[in-house]
Each structure stands twice: as C-alpha cells, then as structure tokens.
C-alpha cells in the first residue's frame, strides 16, 4: 500500500505543472483578454469592468490563486460558442472520446502484442520481415489521412461501412439511454442489440484509424523486448534447466518483455489522446477533440484551455495506471518505495 500512496503523491507535481502551464497559456494570449471577453461592442469602460470582474487587473500570483480556486470548484469558465460552462460541455462529450480511445487501444494491443511476440520467436523469418514492414508503413501514415482513406475505400467505394456521421446515425437510430455515456455499453445495458451493432459499426473505422498509429510502437517494442528477453541469461538458465518451451516463452520471456511494453504505453496514450482530435474531426465524432477544434477556430479560449487541462489530467491518470501496472509486473519497483 505504501507504494500506491507514493505513486499517488508522485502525480501531484505533474498535476501542478499542468495547471501552471495551462495558466501560463491563458496569460500568454496575444492581445487583451478583457477586450476579447467584453465582446466587439465594448467600450473602454465596459472592458475595464470585465477586467476587474475577471481579476485581470490583479498581479499574476493573485490571478493564479484565483485560477486554482476556480479549478477547485470545477469552474473552467464559459464557452463563447455554446454559451455553457466549459466543464459541462467537456463532461458531456468526454465519454464519446474515451469510448473511441478505448476501442482503438484494444485494437492496437490485440494486434500488436501477438505480432511482436510472433516476430521475435522467428527472427529474420518472412513473418518477422512482414511484421516489421507493415509496422513501419503503418507508422508513416498520418492518422487523419488514414481516416479519410478508410472512409473513401469502405464507405464510398465498397459501401460496407456506415456513413461517417459520428457515433450513431440519428436518423435511423436513437441514442441509448444515458448511463455511462459510452454508447456501446449503454446499448448493452438497455439490451438494445440493434443499436449496439450500429454503434459498433460506427466505431470500427475510427478505432482502426486511431489504433493503427499506436500499433507500430507497441509491436516494435514487443518484438525488441521479446528478442532481448529470449536472448537473456535467465532464459538460457531456463533452457539449461530443461523447462518446456511454452513455460520459457511465457513465464520467463514474455513476462519480462512486458516491462518495456508497459513503459511505452505512456507514449502510446499520448499519441492516442492527441490523434483523437484529428480522428474526431474526420469522422464527425461528437467528442472533446472535435469540440476543441471548433473552439480553437472560434478563438474560444476558455474552451481550449479547459480541453487542454482535461486531456492533461486524463493523461496523468492514465500514466498513473501504467505505473501501477508496472509495479504489478516488476517486484523491483515495489521494493524501491
């Protein structure tokens, strides 16, 4: 338990850094935010009034405290485009993004790890070369371009994928009653299998486009660390002890190979969360990424900052999860604490 607390405490500096950076971003705005928030019809007096109201006339440390205070109340300001509180907007759209990211991750991991292991057990074979080649190619495709290509091929040319209109074609189906916010899960809870299938069908292309970019680093590191583990002294010991091949491959090599794999998961999450924005844009997905793009283009700063902050917090939490996974795999980490 001690190490759990230590890890939790360890995220505090990261979170603090994230808050400082988002604060700095909002105060590095070109021009006068007060004038901006006051709107186009404002005069000098109303701008000054807005400035006082927003606390922009206070010294930076005071503004920072105020910012932190607002955050503590879950107040990220109001969006200019939707007119709602940014927090409300983001929380509404978050499940859509999480659902997509989750499926992309499952797709990437489910494909990449067996691929990497397979390639490592037969180094320099055709399988190995095919694996490496396909992984290299996948890594070179921009996610947004893959997204568009898949839509063109599977929707326009082959017509086997549904129209890329977001999470659900609302003309044909109604969204499942809100429980978790994840449509596939909610549809299952409601027992509505038709909607479930429709949601899943909508998810396939975006999840694959998103997952492809995460595939390469996972497959690469799995192959490399598997090769290393198979060539290690302790695998040799296991062979010298006459252990069966399956035992050597799984208990000795693979479990050790998982350590570096869990270490790149952090980077993979960074990719996934970032590329999420692009994929949501391509597929009209109603998640926080698409929301952020709209906000960026409309210069809706409060919304953009809220988005950046939420993504960062999400990322810090995911990293914490990866860290804990690492401690489960590796006793050495546990004992360090």
């Amino acid at each position: 338990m001690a190490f759990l607390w230590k890890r939790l405490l360890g995220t505090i500096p990261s979170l603090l850094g994230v808050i400082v950076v988002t604060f700095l971003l909002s105060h590095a705005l070109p021009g006068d935010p007060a004038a901006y928030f006051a709107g186009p019809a404002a005069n000098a007096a109303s701008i000054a009034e807005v400035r006082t109201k927003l606390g922009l006339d206070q010294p930076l440390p005071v503004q920072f405290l105020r910012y932190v205070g607002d955050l503590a109340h879950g107040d990220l300001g109001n969006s200019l485009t939707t007119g709602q509180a940014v927090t409300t907007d983001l929380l509404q759209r978050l499940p859509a993004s999480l659902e997509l990211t989750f499926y992309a991750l499952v797709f990437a991991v489910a494909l990449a790890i067996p691929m990497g292991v397979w390639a490592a057990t037969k180094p320099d074979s055709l399988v190995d070369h095919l694996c490496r080649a396909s992984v290299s190619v996948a890594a070179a495709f921009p996610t947004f371009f893959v997204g568009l290509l898949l839509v063109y091929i599977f929707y326009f040319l082959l017509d086997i994928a549904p129209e890329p209109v977001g999470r659900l074609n609302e003309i044909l189906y109604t969204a499942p009653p809100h429980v978790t916010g994840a449509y596939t899960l909610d549809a299952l809870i409601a027992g509505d299998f038709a909607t479930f299938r429709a949601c899943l069908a909508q998810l396939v292309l975006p999840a694959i486009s998103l997952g492809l970019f995460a595939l390469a680093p996972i497959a690469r590191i799995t192959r490399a660390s598997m090769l290393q583990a198979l060539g290690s002294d302790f695998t040799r010991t296991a062979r010298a002890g006459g252990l069966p091949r399956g035992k050597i491959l799984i208990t000795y090599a693979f479990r050790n190979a998982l350590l570096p794999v869990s270490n790149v998961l952090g980077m993979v999450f960074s990719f996934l969360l970032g590329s999420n924005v692009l994929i949501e844009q391509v597929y009209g997905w109603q998640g926080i990424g698409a929301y952020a793009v709209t906000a960026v283009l409309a210069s809706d700063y409060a919304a953009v900052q809220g988005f950046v902050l939420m993504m960062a917090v999400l990322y810090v939490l995911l990293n914490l999860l990866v860290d804990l996974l690492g401690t489960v795999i590796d006793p050495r980490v546990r004992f360090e604490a």
Partner: protein
Amino acid sequence: MTAQLTIEDFSLVFRTRHGTVRALEDVSLSVERGEIVGVVGESGSGKSVLAYAVMGLQDAAARVQGGRILFGGLDMLGAGEQALADVRGRELAMIFQSPRTALNPIRKVGAQIEDILREHANLPSRELRKHAIAALARVRIPDPERRYNAYPFELSGGMCQRVMIAMALACSPFLLIADEPTTGLDVTTQAVIMDLIRDMSRDQRMSTLLITHDLGLAGEYCDRIAVMHAGHMVEIAPVEELLSRPAHPYTRQLLAATPTPRSTVEGLVSIPGQLPDLRRDLPPCRFSARCERHVALCDEAPLPWTSLSATHLVRCRVPL
C-alpha cells in the same frame, strides 16, 4: 570407472558475417563418475563454447562439423530438442557466471527452483515448496524459508550463485557444468562457492566440469585439468602432474604467467604474440606461431595426441 561424459573429436564453427570462425577443432575429453575436471584457457580459447555445446545450448550461428558428445548413453548431438530438454535440469545441469542476470529478475527464487522440480522431479504439487526449500538449505543458505520468497535483486551475488547451484542440483544431476561460476564474485565468496561445489560433487558422486580462466582455482579444486588454446585442447593431465610437469609449451607459459603466492614480478613470463585469427587458414598446431619450440615437424598435419602416461595427454610434437 565409467565415463559420464565423453567428447570425441568434436569440431564446431560459427558462421558469421565476417567469415567462418573455427571455434573448436578435434576436441576430446572425458569426465568420469564423481570426477571434477577443469577446462582452463584464456578468453577466446573456446572453453565456454564447449560447455554450451555439451548442454546443446549453442548459439544459432554455430554449426557442428564433426565428432561426438556422449552423455551417459545419450548421443547429445543426435538427440532431438525434446530428448535434450528431458535430460537438462534432471541429469545434466549448468551454472553460469554473473548469477544475478542468470536468474529471472521478476520471479521469486523459490518459484524458479519449483519450475525445475515440477518439470523433472515427478512430485505432487503440494510437495514442491518443501523440496525447493530443502534445495536452498542444501546449499547452506541461511533461513531458506524466508529466502524462498526473495527476488534475485534482494540477494547478494554470492547468494544468487548459491540459488543457481540449488537449482542446478535440485534433481541430483549426474553432471554439473560450471561456467566461470565465481567470475565477478569477491575472493572470499569465491572460496565459499567453490568449497560448496566441491563438497556437493563429492557427496553426491556427481561429475563436474569446471570452466575457468584461473589455473590457480582449477588447481585447487579439480582432479584433472584440460588446457585449451585457440579452439584446441592442448593438454590433459591430473592436477599435480599438470602443475608440476606441464608438457605443452603453452601450459608451461600459462603457469608461469599466473601469479601465485610464491611468484615474483621478474619470474612472471609473458606469452609473446596473440591468439591466431580463427577465421583464417590455421596451421595444424594453433600455438606454433607463438611457440619457442616450434620445429618443421609441427607444420605437418595431423597433429597427434601424445601419451606421456595413461592419464597425461599432450597435443604437441615436441613436448617438454
């Protein structure tokens, strides 16, 4: 006496990008029941390659060129992977240098011993733990119940080597191959580990093949010593005889280069020249270019073994 291990005219090459390395050529050696045999040589002599070949654990780039390796009645070179796996860990065991990395870093040492027992010892699952702890106790690890749950990183290098020995001896093998088991350990720990290996092989009438670069170490613990140079075995003799009356010029020089409690710096002999490049064409005697006793006859193949006595063999045309 019956030979536990017989190596006959064994040759092995490595195919590399830069040519074929003739790592072992016409190596012959036998190890009797309960005997401790040392294989001594400098780096590049092929002593470790030989050890791995006996285990059937050679590198993927290795190709056996000829000869036989017989373990008990089993032809190790002809046996399939399954037959080898059956023998390894049960009848034939090996310990390595750098014991810390030779143990699985994320598995409890007790579990690693159990893995071997489960595979070879034919024990019911609930007995495994008891036997693993007993194996730890046999190698005089203090507080074996507690050490059973330890991970390798929690143990010292010497303690890890004991765990390795416990693993190797868990199924009471007939032959133990120890590949530089004390390299990297402190001299005090080395003495403890070597005493342990010697006592275990004496107690269980187990044969031991000790691979080492240290003639002094081999001299203290082995019954017989085989000296290797550049992939050739050049001399095999009982310890006292090898140390007092070395017959091969290389053995003599190696002895004179090894500092002992009685040597002086003036008395230290340095061996001129370097190991030959094993990728090139080699003379019948691979030491000839460095040898002061080299005569024309030395360049005539094949280079025969000369028997100085029933137990003292040397591979030299003009032995001392």
